[in-house]
């Protein structure tokens, strides 16, 4: 059976309301990325850095809309937040987590390779992640680096594998009971 676009988005399992030209659209983060929906909290530089580091952590994270997902959630009431960070005891507002850790990872890239995050090759990306995954690297000025690793990795996992598309990639049936109920508005 071929799904209509609306049905597909409703079945994405991660459809979120994005403001578009004065109206609200229900989009998956992947669709928001594809449509180039504007960001409301994150700067262009932060978006680029989130896309780059999350794609090193989980290939496909950029195209799955990880930056749109995080940006959208930073606008939400923390108690309604879908970010895994709420489990880790970091108090809201969560921008106070993402802004410094993304900046710190970008600086680490510069200090280790004299390159922007988005310019790292696979080997460099791996060395970068291994330098902050388990402990704060020297000069780290942000919330704990291992927490940054786990939170960003989980965000990327959520958008790449936590949706029906992600389940399908893994060959696992989604078997939903109820999908997010919002429609186009």
């Amino acid at each position, binding site marked *: 059976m071929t799904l209509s676009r609306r049905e597909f988005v409703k079945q994405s399992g991660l459809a979120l309301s994005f403001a578009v030209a004065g109206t609200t659209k229900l989009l998956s983060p992947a669709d928001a990325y594809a449509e180039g929906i504007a960001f409301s909290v994150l700067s262009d530089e932060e978006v680029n850095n989130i896309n780059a580091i999350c794609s090193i952590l989980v290939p496909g994270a950029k195209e799955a809309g990880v930056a749109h997902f995080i940006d959208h959630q930073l606008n939400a009431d923390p108690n309604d*937040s879908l970010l895994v960070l709420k489990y880790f005891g970091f108090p809201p507002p969560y921008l106070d987590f993402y802004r410094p850790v993304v900046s710190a990872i970008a600086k680490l890239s510069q200090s280790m390779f004299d390159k922007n995050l988005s310019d790292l090759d696979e080997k460099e990306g791996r060395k970068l*992640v291994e330098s902050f995954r388990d402990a704060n690297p020297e000069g780290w000025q942000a919330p704990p680096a291992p927490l940054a690793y*786990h939170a960003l990795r989980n965000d990327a996992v959520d958008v790449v594998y936590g949706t029906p598309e992600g389940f399908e990639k893994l060959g696992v049936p989604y078997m939903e009971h109820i999908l997010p109920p919002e429609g186009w508005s």
Partner: protein
Amino acid sequence: MKTNEKVDVVIVGTGAASSVYAALLAEAGKSVVMLEKGTARKLTDLYSSQTWARRLKWATPHVMEESKDSIWYNFNAGHGYGGAAIHHYAVWPRYHPEDMKEYSLYGQALDWPYEYDELRPWYDKVMMDVGMSGDAEKEIWRPAGDPYPLPPVLVSNHGKVLARGFEALGMHTSPIPMAILSQPYKGRQACIWDGWCDAGCPTGALANPLVHYIPRAVKAGASLRPDSHVTRVLMDNKGVRANGVEYYDSEGVKHVQHADLVVLGAFTIENPRILLNSATSKHKNGLGNSSGMVGKYIMSHPAVTAFGMFEEETQNHIGATGGQLLNQDRFPKEKGSFGSQQWEVALALKPNDLLGIAMSRADLFGSDLHSFMKKASRSMTSMVAVVEDQPMIENRIELSSKKDKFGMPLALAKHTWHEETRKLFHDTAKEGLKIVKAAGATQAWHSPPGGQHIMGGTIMGSDPEKSVTNENAQCHDIPNLVLGGGGIFPTSSCVNSTYTIHATAMKSSRYIADHWGSIVS
């Protein structure tokens, strides 16, 4: 400030204990109001997504931790109608008789103010109310109780593969006892084994509070008020009886709700927080705290998950989140690593979230992670051990110097596992690897420790100088102030707490309904 019309009973919370109190007292003809700090929620709000499931947990910090071993508040507590029980996995083993008299039998830990035989009828009653699936004969460790009304939950290849490992080591497995319907029951549909329990089950197959006791309470006339942040229990002028609570609504308006009976069922951490914040000139250390025991003996089960990778397909995506099989061979308590331990075997897995496949190897990233995800989705196994935490008086909840937006001090948790508990945990983790390897795994590994099922802090006891409540969960100091939830447990056993929360709440509710006149006058 708004003063609401007085009711017979005000209940703080809408979770497992609160919903039982509400149903039974409303059905006994009492006017009942339930106050929920979180949001209003109905079954149709429970979306099938591990990402959306996080709405069921708090983000706003109510608890600061100065713990060596975290109690994992954010993961365990619940936000909204149904409380923590809305996202619980419905694994419902019973406490064993020895769990309730550990001091008498072993000279260690504490005694409950009654023995298992007094709780048994309430376990049986709750079981028949909500419907449970299991096999009492095969569950060889099970204490005395009526047979399960429903046949066991599904066992997929996941359970069969792991059962081989237990069998190879001479260990036993049985169907896991669950408050999930294996067949239709009292108008509710059976489970379809899709593994979305953690996201909150909207079908009615899993006995969360929105399925059974809250609807019963509402049918009998109880009302629920969401976004109601209770800060204090109020006392009469003599300081002898509770006469209501103070709370703030979502607009920040302060309310007073007077009642003849106050039930605190606001989760293990919130109950002592509210009691300590309710100090008056006649109760300078907080309500119910003449013994100094409010907040003391906080417990949290250490849990470890053992994973295996196999050549064969394990069908790990189907079943219930809480598992398919049970093992309690290591229930007897031994000196040196005192405490009980149980395995919940073959947990249904999803790719993401804390208990998801990706987190089982949190060290992997990039192409290595993707290769792992592909293989693990097909051939991984998972089983979790729950380990008994010992009650220690130094593990406690206090009030923090930090305050919430209503000016109420946050809770401050201080918790460290007993050295014997730590040893038992490490022995358990090793045992898990042995079992998985014996089942034929090509790789075996285990998780770091996590904390499940927060208990204690307002414990029951026979001695008013050493406990907060009596055997009916009434405060020793204030008989019309009642405590609900795992906070009243003097010991933690190693079993999941929600079934016993229901049973103890039902025992207390029935006593209160039967002795209403003497309790509230």
